[in-house]
């Protein structure tokens, strides 16, 4: 297995280098045979990377502890699913996953029906450059098939906190997002190299970008869900450098997805769109560098190694390459960009949306990197933790919500203020009414109330769009509500899919604001039979239970929960002791009641009848996960739909290309 594993990695290195060179020669000599040879190389890379993955899966599943990676992340008693998902538990495996995804995506592109697109050799060259880099890293610093000096009797096991369904999906989703972003990035550079700065590359990559964004969204939300359930500190987002690393490209890709609409429709913002997708892709490399270099302290960064320097070198190379290509084509882009015609139009509101999203990305980047800057510039060590990000990002996100409330109601090209207000009066009234109701129901906190009111406005603005559309259809086509609704959405899946995503954001925002502003916490030591209160809830501790099962010791607390004197059930927070792990882990007990999570952690105990609990009331946290699911559904809807317009089809037919 060692020989097979290492051989395929070396083959990967040589074939990716060969395919890249073959592509470059083919392009220079305009020789189809070289290009065909490069395509063959890509097919081989696909087979090679899949073989490497199967070998890693095999050695993980069969517990071959002579391999360092297997011994470090698995043990005999680990359930099979976690043995397999240990694939992406460490540096080596996750990088292999990344290269496999890159090879699959490159293969998909060069063997698709658009394989004759003249852009393809350029695109595949840039992707091959990425693949080559990852094979270099895998061979020279992170070989998953490296052997141990002595074969251990058993492995160290997987960190118990990673033994959770969330951690099976989260890394794959993030890597799908990262690898997926390499595709639009490659198309953007290819378009520049070929001097084709029209919207073709955007149309060809729309689904790739949208899919990458979907995976980044899912990855971030699933990661938060895992943190909430598994880490036991009662939160879901800690603004840790690792979290910020995946949030940064999400923000810039979100901006890109909005601004490309302006280019597609109006031929504007060409340089901006190219810059945004380049920045988004570079941020995936930067994030990986941040996570793996150890330059910043993080609670869940990968172990330090010299892998960071490889990523830094590649990042700098890609920055230089991108800047060089953009500068070389600057005049062309500038010449072909149309100007904006009105301050009050959908185009301007999208621009504002981009400004806010990019400003948010800059704020997160700045906050993440500031400890380094401060040490370098002022020789002062500082921490930039959650309070900083909350203070900086709250107004930015609030502006974004406001913009999301007004943007759908503003017309393209040149909007009329009176017409806009006529449309906006109902969403605005709903928001104001919500604010008044919240205030008189006893809620306090200006930011929270304003945030929730704006979210209600935003939600209503989108519902109004659906209602108006359905009404118009019913009036003209005489359809029933459901049929009219279905046909309305089917007719323009991109638009209404986007609106569904926005509705998901509104629901998610309610969860974020409420859980942040109105959570309560208590730390209490109680005797068996004793009760304590938090908010309107009363918890009664009924004693501890000890049991051993599946090579782990469990200490569980039995507790009854009452709401205003009425029993609403029981909770069972646990502490679990593993044979193979030095620290016990907390198994949080969560009871949902009226959109509030009663979050109970068994903190410590003196004996069977006396224990300490950390209890939090987190309102509307479940709305974050619901909002995330709605966002995913909306994105899928937009992904499936999105026919090309007449204008672009005409343009495409000239070059013989179509849309994905």
């Amino acid at each position, binding site marked *: 297995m060692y020989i097979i594993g290492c051989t395929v990695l070396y083959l990967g290195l040589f074939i990716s280098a060969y395919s890249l060179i073959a592509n470059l020669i083919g392009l220079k000599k305009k020789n189809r045979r070289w290009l065909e040879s490069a395509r063959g190389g890509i097919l081989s890379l696909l087979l090679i990377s899949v073989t490497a993955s199967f070998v890693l899966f095999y050695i993980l599943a069969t517990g071959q502890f002579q391999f360092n990676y297997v011994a470090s992340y698995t043990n005999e008693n680990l359930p099979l699913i976690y043995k397999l998902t240990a694939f992406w538990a460490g540096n080596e495996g996750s990088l292999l996953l990344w290269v496999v995804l890159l090879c699959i995506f490159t293969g998909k592109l060069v063997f698709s029906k658009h394989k004759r697109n003249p852009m393809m050799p350029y695109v595949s060259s840039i992707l091959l450059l990425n693949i080559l880099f990852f094979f270099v890293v895998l061979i020279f610093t992170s070989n998953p098939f490296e052997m141990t000096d002595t074969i251990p009797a058993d492995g160290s096991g997987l960190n118990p906190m990673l033994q959770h369904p969330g951690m099976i999906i989260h890394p794959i989703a993030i890597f799908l997002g990262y690898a997926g972003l390499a595709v639009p990035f490659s198309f953007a550079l290819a378009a520049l190299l070929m001097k084709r700065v029209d919207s073709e590359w955007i149309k060809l990559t729309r689904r790739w970008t949208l899919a990458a964004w979907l995976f980044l969204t899912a990855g971030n939300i699933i990661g938060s869900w895992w943190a909430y359930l598994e880490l*036991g500190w009662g939160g879901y987002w800690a603004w840790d450098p690792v979290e910020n690393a995946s949030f940064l490209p999400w923000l810039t890709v979100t901006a890109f997805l909005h601004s490309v609409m302006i280019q597609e429709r109006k031929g504007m913002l060409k340089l901006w769109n190219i810059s945004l997708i380049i920045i988004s892709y570079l941020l995936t490399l930067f994030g990986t560098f941040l996570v793996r270099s150890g330059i910043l302290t993080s609670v869940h960064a990968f172990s330090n190694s010299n892998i960071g320097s490889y990523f830094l070198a590649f990042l700098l190379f890609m920055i230089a390459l991108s800047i060089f290509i953009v500068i070389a084509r600057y005049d062309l882009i500038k010449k072909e960009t149309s*100007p*904006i015609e009105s*301050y009050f139009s959908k185009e301007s509101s999208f621009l504002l949306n981009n*400004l806010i999203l990019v400003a948010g990305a800059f704020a997160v980047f700045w906050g993440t990197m500031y400890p380094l800057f401060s040490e370098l510039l002022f020789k002062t060590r*500082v921490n930039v933790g959650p309070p900083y990000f909350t203070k900086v990002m709250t107004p930015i996100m609030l502006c974004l919500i406001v913009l999301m409330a007004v943007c759908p109601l503003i017309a393209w090209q040149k909007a009329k203020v009176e017409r806009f207000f006529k449309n906006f009066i109902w969403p605005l009234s709903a928001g104001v009414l919500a604010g008044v109701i919240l205030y008189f129901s006893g809620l306090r906190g200006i930011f929270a109330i304003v945030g929730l009111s704006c979210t209600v406005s935003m939600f209503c603005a989108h519902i109004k769009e659906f209602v108006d559309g359905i009404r118009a259809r019913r009036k003209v086509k005489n359809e029933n509500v459901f049929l009219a609704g279905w046909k309305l959405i089917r007719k323009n899946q991109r638009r209404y899919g986007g609106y569904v995503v926005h509705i998901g954001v509104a629901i998610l925002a309610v969860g974020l604001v409420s859980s942040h502003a109105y959570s309560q916490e208590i730390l209490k030591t109680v005797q068996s039979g004793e009760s304590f209160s938090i908010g309107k809830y009363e918890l009664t501790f009924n004693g501890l239970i000890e049991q051993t099962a599946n090579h782990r010791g469990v200490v569980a607390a039995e507790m009854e929960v009452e709401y205003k004197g009425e029993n609403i059930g029981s909770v069972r927070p646990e502490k679990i002791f593993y044979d193979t792990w030095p620290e016990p882990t907390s198994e949080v007990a969560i009871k949902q009641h009226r959109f509030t999570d009663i979050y109970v952690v068994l903190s410590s105990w003196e004996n069977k009848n006396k224990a*300490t609990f950390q209890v939090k009331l987190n309102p509307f946290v479940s709305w974050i996960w619901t909002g995330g699911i709605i966002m995913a559904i909306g994105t899928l809807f937009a992904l499936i739909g999105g026919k090309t317009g007449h204008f672009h089809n005409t343009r495409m037919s000239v070059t013989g290309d179509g849309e994905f």
Partner: protein
Amino acid sequence: MKRKISIFVIALFFIAPITGFAQYDYNSPEFQRIVSKLHMQGHSDHDVATCSVKQLYYEEVLSMLNKEGMSEEDIIQYYVDEYGQTALKEPEFGKSGLFAWVMPVVGLAAGAVLIGLWMRKGKTKAKSVHESEGKWQSEVNREMTEKLFDEERYKRF
């Protein structure tokens, strides 16, 4: 004067025991406010049950509140004097920390100014092009705009 002094003495009688014997615990808002600002050498998000560093901080803060009668500001300042700015979860507003707070605002403002200038320039350009060359800058522009209007007109049907 005598009356004022006697009122003050009586008031002191009532106030002194209340402040003197004020007992704070982990759930006191004052305690929560203080610990929420402390970085605790990277242990602030750890489980208090298993983290000895966090336990030490909690005990110290409670002791400063209850036994030494220190105020919130005094306690924060004590940790800043002891460990510098790394004692806190966020940079201070003055000196070295100022950059941390100001830069996002500067970034946003700079972006807004750039967009404003770009839009102004673009508007002027569009106007002059429309005036000099008729309504459409090019056939492509005309097609794009017509398509846009068609799409808007029939978006629901």
